[in-house]
């Protein structure tokens, strides 16, 4: 509610980014470098999303048997541009969830999703990866998409940009068939928890 009050207009992200660009650049020049990273710029949008993708793993509970070993890595599959995959790999580097390291694997839209625990499908690759996404929905895989409203089926987690901030909606019921549980703490920070449609 407050968010909607604070963000009354729903202009296209790009046009808004563009409007903000000169000011943001100016501000970034004045501020120290780590502060610049926090700014939601077009350049850093995927960096933020990559970091979020890595952190989602901490709020997800996979069914038993999803991992061979207690220290088996959590495999993040990225279906998208190579730059995005690099971003995710960068974010995952050095990260560990409950003693499990993060492993990033770049996938093509037709690739099988076996052994993947988190599947990030970028907006650009979404149309080609419908089948893979659908297949992943049947498996205990946290699917992450960045679909705009009406663009097509979204994953369990769907990035949205609200104002100049990266937010996400969560549809926990999508993971229920595969016994994938989403922590309620993650739900508390979601922009919207998508209800069961039918």
């Amino acid at each position: 509610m407050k968010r909607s009050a604070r963000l009354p207009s729903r202009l296209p992200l790009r046009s808004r980014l563009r409007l903000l660009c000169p000011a943001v650049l100016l501000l970034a020049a004045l501020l120290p470098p780590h502060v610049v990273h926090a700014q939601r710029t077009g350049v850093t949008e995927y960096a933020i999303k990559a970091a979020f993708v890595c952190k989602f793993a901490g709020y997800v509970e996979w069914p038993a048997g999803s991992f061979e070993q207690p220290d088996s890595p959590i495999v993040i599959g990225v279906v998208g541009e190579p730059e995005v995959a690099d971003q995710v790999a960068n974010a995952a580097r050095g990260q560990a969830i409950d003693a499990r390291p993060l492993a990033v694997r770049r996938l093509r839209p037709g690739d099988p999703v076996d052994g993947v625990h988190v599947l990030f499908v970028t907006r650009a690759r979404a149309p080609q990866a419908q089948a893979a996404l659908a297949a992943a929905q049947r498996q205990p895989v946290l699917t992450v998409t960045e679909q705009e409203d009406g663009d097509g089926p979204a994953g369990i987690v769907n990035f949205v940009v609200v104002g100049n901030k990266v937010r996400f909606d969560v549809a926990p019921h999508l993971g229920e068939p595969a016994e994938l549980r989403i922590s309620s703490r993650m739900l508390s920070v979601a922009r919207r928890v998508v209800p069961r449609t039918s």
Partner: protein
Amino acid sequence: MKAGVKPMFRGSLQRKLLGVMLATAFVTVLVALGAMIGHDLRESHRGWVEEIAAQAELLGRTTAPALTFDDAAVAQENLTLLSRQQRIRAAAIYDARGTMVARLRPAAAEPPLPALPGADGVQVDGGYLHAFRRVVDQNQILGTVYLRGEYALYERMGRYAGIGAVVIAIAMLAALGVSFWLQRLVTRPVLDIAATARHVMERQDYTRRAGKTSDDEVGVLADAFNDMLSEIERRTRALEAASQEQERLNAELERRVQERTAQLEQSNQELSVATRAAEQASRAKSEFLSSMSHELRTPLNAIIGFGQLLASDRFPADEQQRRMFVDHIVKSGRHLLALINEVLNLAQIEAGRLTLSLEPVALQDVLDDSRAMVDPLAAPRGIRVLFPERCTYVVTADRTRLKQVLLNLLSNAVKYNRDQGAVVIDCTLPTPGRVRVSVQDTGRGLTPRQIESLFQPFNRLGQEAGEQEGTGVGLVVTKHLVEMMDGRIGVQSTPGAGSVFWVDLPQADGAAASAPLPLASSAEHKALDLPAASQPPQDAEGATVLCVEDNPANLAFVRSALGHRPHLRLLTATDGRTGVELARAHRPQVILMDNNMPGLTGREALAVLMDDPVTSGIPVIALTANAMPKAVDDGLAAGFFRYLTKPIDVDALIGAVDEALRESRGRGNG
């Protein structure tokens, strides 16, 4: 003061008890409350600290996703939920870089939120709890939460203080009530004892007893106190009794002291009386000596005077005159002898050396003896002496002395009678046990004043110038003798008509007691009387008489007295030893022996002579100045034939010699 003792005493004990109770209650409540409050405050503090730490932790956990996904709005929303809690005064959330991403602003009066996060932990500062908490997730520091909570410890302490005050006040009230109750239980018996003690002290009333109300220590105290009181009471009584006894003894002592004092005074009076009597006696003795000197001089004057007339050639006197002179001399000499005898008697009596042998004496015998001696006196003057017809009374007396008494009275009655007068003797029994012998004369009588001095020595009652001779000692001796025989002597007189002298003597118990005449006395009389009979001298030829005498005058007298017997040869010796030798040599028929001589005394010489068979048969006649009756008796017992006392009566001497000659001759014949 006594009025003040009571409340002070009572107040003290009660106040002390009350003080103890209240202090105990106060301290107990204070400690209990303090412990409880302290514990409570500590627990509160810990609880608050833990609570805020937990809240910070919870907030951190809640905020972790918001920080993870950089969602300030959610973070703010999380904080806003906290704003419902009253105790949380302010809160803030900082991201990993220290930037405050959400805040709950404090009230205007309160300090602002810290600009930068602090170290982890909870601090108390300025009445608030400040809690910082790192938000860590998957080993990554996501940020920090800050909470500021109320820290109401001091308020709570204030509240507790109020509650404590109220609780203490209630406890004090309760203690006060309990104390009053306890006082009834404990203090009152003690106070009762104290009241009793005070009563006893004030009134010295040891009969009071303290009441015993319980069997505890106070009861024991009451018992002990009562026992003590009993003991004190007992001792007090004993003390009082002892004090009374003491007083009684003191009174007794005082009384005895008074008695002794009175006795002492009496003794002093008696002493002064005795002193006066002694002085009087001394004076009397002086007077007596003076009188006696006079009395002795009077007859001596006659003797010496007439002697001088006889010896003088210038006063030629015819035979008749010379005979008159000699008569005067002899009469005066006899008077002197009587006087000396009387005085010696008196001296003996007064010295207490006179011994009497009291025995029953028939009055008739004594009267008969006296009659024989008085008649010769009375006859020349025509005085009739009338004795009672028969006097049967027997009295207890010394025979010789009784006769002396009666003779004295009778001779006086004759002596001081008128010529042709009468003397009447009577014996009566005026009171049972007392025999009275009275001698009545028809003389001139005595005035009362004369009677007063009647029994004084040398008082001749106006007879000094009279023709009747007297010693003036006779009545004194008589009175003494009568009194020594337990009798009384008295006189009644009518001047001009005559006097009655009487003697009372105790009646002897056995009236039948015989009174034999003592032979010695009879013999003596006979000896004395014999010369008067003037028996003719018998054959005296060839008789030798030895006279042992140291005094030449006495020797000359004996020679003169025996001179008219020419056939008697007289040998003389002047001491006892010579006398004994002469006696052995000449064997005289009679020895005349003086007693008091140089060398051998007469008694010793007699013993020597009697031991010697040659001389033991010679009769020895004592011629001695020792006229005491005892000496006479002793002498006769020692063996003297006769005992003649000086001055020697010529007739008596010649009679004794004649008798001795007869004895000697008879013995020689036999």
